[in-house]
């Protein structure tokens, strides 16, 4: 049985095999990390949507991505509410403003989100807990991931936002996504106190929630039929595809992490090939002996292929563990939604198998050198 021989050969020199496994472990880890970035970096654009409660998004037909959303008449939301399946349509206002400490200093750009605190728009415990705080006049909540440039983010600190004196009511933890360096969250009334020149009858986003049992796709169709051409309607999957496509294709993001992924794959093959070739070189006497007792080249090839798969499978497990650890670390450092889902896991495993097979075939050449006459 080639499998048994392959296994024996691997466990015979435990130290060497451990070293080789270590090399392959790094190669697989590299693929995990690059794939994670490739998938997660564009997802940064979905961070805030991912923590909002809605089934359908109504927005301007000029909507590009979250930070360039455009505005549409608030009256469209009233129209949306007339559709039978729609439970609620809540407005979200977005604005850019300057943030400055009450005692002067730098004027830093901040994004301001205006919502009805009681509408339960954010599925973020910190925000829900502090919804009453947002109702206080001239009070905002700030995102804890707001950069240090903005100064200490403690409650009761007084700052100027868009030239108006505002009080930080509290801090919540969500992350700023790709919306800028900092985010302040305000009630509608407070939002318009900061942006008095903005027409109050236009909104940036309309969050539509549906009645239980309603089908999002069909309701989206109904809304598209009833709403004029100045708006468009996204279901959640459509929105995710739209935002990710924006960041992947319209910016350099996709290319950079895509090329990183390709490079990691090639490097993986190189590492695996080198490791296997070294193994074969070291085991050449054993292979020559097998040849001498009459085994065919095919049999030896099968052993190498199995060795390759075995060693990769063994390296895969700790690589997965390390990847999960690194993902968690990067998640907490950058707040990128770096997670491992089943398709990604499958993809890495598939890539690993392809790498193992490719490098095994590359290293078969060394095997032909096994000459029984040289051993004895």
């Amino acid at each position, binding site marked *: 049985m080639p499998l048994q021989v392959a296994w024996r050969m691997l466990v015979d020199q435990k130290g060497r095999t451990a070293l080789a496994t*270590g090399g392959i472990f790094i190669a697989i880890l590299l693929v995990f*990390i690059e794939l994670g*970035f490739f998938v997660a970096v564009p997802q940064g654009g979905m961070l805030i949507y991912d923590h909002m409660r809605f089934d359908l998004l109504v927005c301007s037909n*000029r909507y590009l991505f979250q930070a360039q959303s455009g505005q549409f008449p608030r009256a469209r939301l009233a129209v949306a509410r007339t559709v039978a399946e729609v439970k609620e349509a809540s407005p979200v206002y977005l604005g850019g403003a300057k943030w400055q400490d009450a005692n*002067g200093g730098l004027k830093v750009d901040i994004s301001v989100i205006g919502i009805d605190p009681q509408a339960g728009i954010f599925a973020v415990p910190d925000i829900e807990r502090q919804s009453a705080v947002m109702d206080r006049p001239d009070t905002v909540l700030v995102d804890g991931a707001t950069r240090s*440039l903005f100064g200490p983010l403690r409650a009761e600190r007084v700052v100027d936002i868009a030239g108006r004196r505002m009080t930080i009511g509290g801090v919540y933890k969500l992350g700023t996504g790709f919306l800028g360096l900092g985010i302040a969250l305000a009630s509608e009334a407070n939002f318009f106190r900061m942006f008095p020149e903005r027409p109050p009858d236009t909104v940036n986003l309309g969050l539509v929630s549906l009645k239980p049992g309603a089908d999002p796709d069909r309701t989206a169709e109904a809304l598209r039929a009833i709403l004029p051409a100045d708006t468009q309607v996204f279901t959640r999957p459509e929105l995710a595809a739209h935002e990710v496509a924006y960041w992947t294709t319209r910016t350099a993001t996709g290319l950079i992490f895509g*090329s990183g992924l390709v490079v990691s794959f090639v*490097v993986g093959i190189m590492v695996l090939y080198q*490791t296997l070739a070294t193994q074969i070189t070291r085991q050449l006497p054993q292979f020559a002996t097998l040849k001498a007792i009459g085994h065919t080249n095919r049999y030896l090839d099968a052993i190498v292929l199995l060795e390759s798969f075995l060693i990769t499978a063994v390296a895969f497990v700790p690589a997965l563990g390390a990847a999960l650890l690194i993902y968690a670390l990067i998640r907490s*450092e950058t707040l990128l939604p770096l997670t491992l889902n089943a398709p990604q896991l499958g993809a890495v495993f598939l890539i690993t198998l392809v790498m193992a097979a490719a490098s095994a075939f590359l290293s078969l050449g060394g095997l032909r050198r096994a000459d029984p006459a040289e051993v004895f």
Partner: protein
Amino acid sequence: MTVAETHRRFVDPRFVPLALRNLLANKGRLVRSSAGIGFAVLLMLVQLGFERGFFDASLATVRQLDGDLVIISRSNYRFASADPFPRSYLATAAKVAGVLSVSPLYAAWQSFSWKDPAGDQSYLVQAFAFDPDHPAFLLPGVKADAARLKEEDAVIVDRRARRFLGMASGTGKTEINGRPVQIVGGFALGPDFMSDGTVMMSEASFARLLPGNRLSAADLPVEFGMVKIGPGADPSTVQQALEAALPHDVRVLTRPQLIAFERDFQADVSSAGPIFWMGTVVGFVVGMLISYQIIYTDLSDQLPQYATLKGMGYENSYLVRVVIEQAALSALAGYAPAWLACLVVYRAIGAVSLLPLHMTWELTLLSFSLTLGMCLLSGVLAVRRVIAADPAEVF
């Protein structure tokens, strides 16, 4: 060949380039090992290049500013942030000794909506305005086409802007903020992480296109004051005189100071830096693994030769030196083709991503030191194999 010559060529270790011969002995192996090390080098170079490219892209506009000194609002925290000051400050600055000329640079990042000439969609772009007689940028295209900006609603555009903006041709008509404009020329700047493209125009056009603007060109708030100093004037003396003459809510920076100001901001907020540094470290670790495996395999292949040398009486120290030399040569053999391949990769990725990826001396030196470091380290780790070589086993 005399006996002495033969002895010198084949026996005296000082004259036998043994490491080089070992490297060249098996051409197939040389190609394989160069490819392996080369890929690790390429990985590091690409990651380092991206890191620099991100940085250079964010500094490209600032580096192209044409002025010896720049007046900027004291509360401003980055170049691309609207934080204007009154235009009257420029007249004050012009009177300071040593100042040759002061011209205003207007800018907008959040209020110019550019319509793709070939489509319907509009996008936010970065907009600059200046006196066409005193173009505020060093870009050759700006200098060449600035005079045409005196025409009503004429703009020049960034030919290297992201392609969906439709700016590449530098000609034609489109709309900005719903108003028709004529594209009269172009320059090559490239996008950064704030803006996808850039338009430039005269003060008069800027005042007309700015949404909700009720000011004439002469009353527009100024974003930057571009100061040129007279011949022979000392920049830091003029800088101090300007600081003293101007109100406290602005400050005066030399060009290098302005670039450093922007660099500090980008380094502080960008998360691109750590990602690519991590990539470089991974490249180094992977390179270590590959080069260790290669050097180890090579040594195993050549073990009989080393054992023979030992049998002939050579010291371990000599063999160690050969191994280390060979490791250094492997580094070189892997580095050279990877460096050349990287030029092609930079060009290809740069053209598609519009990132300024350039091979520099600094990058070359840094990546070569990393390569040499990983190969030497691997050589040191693998050398035990040679020290353990037993002549008795060979025969």
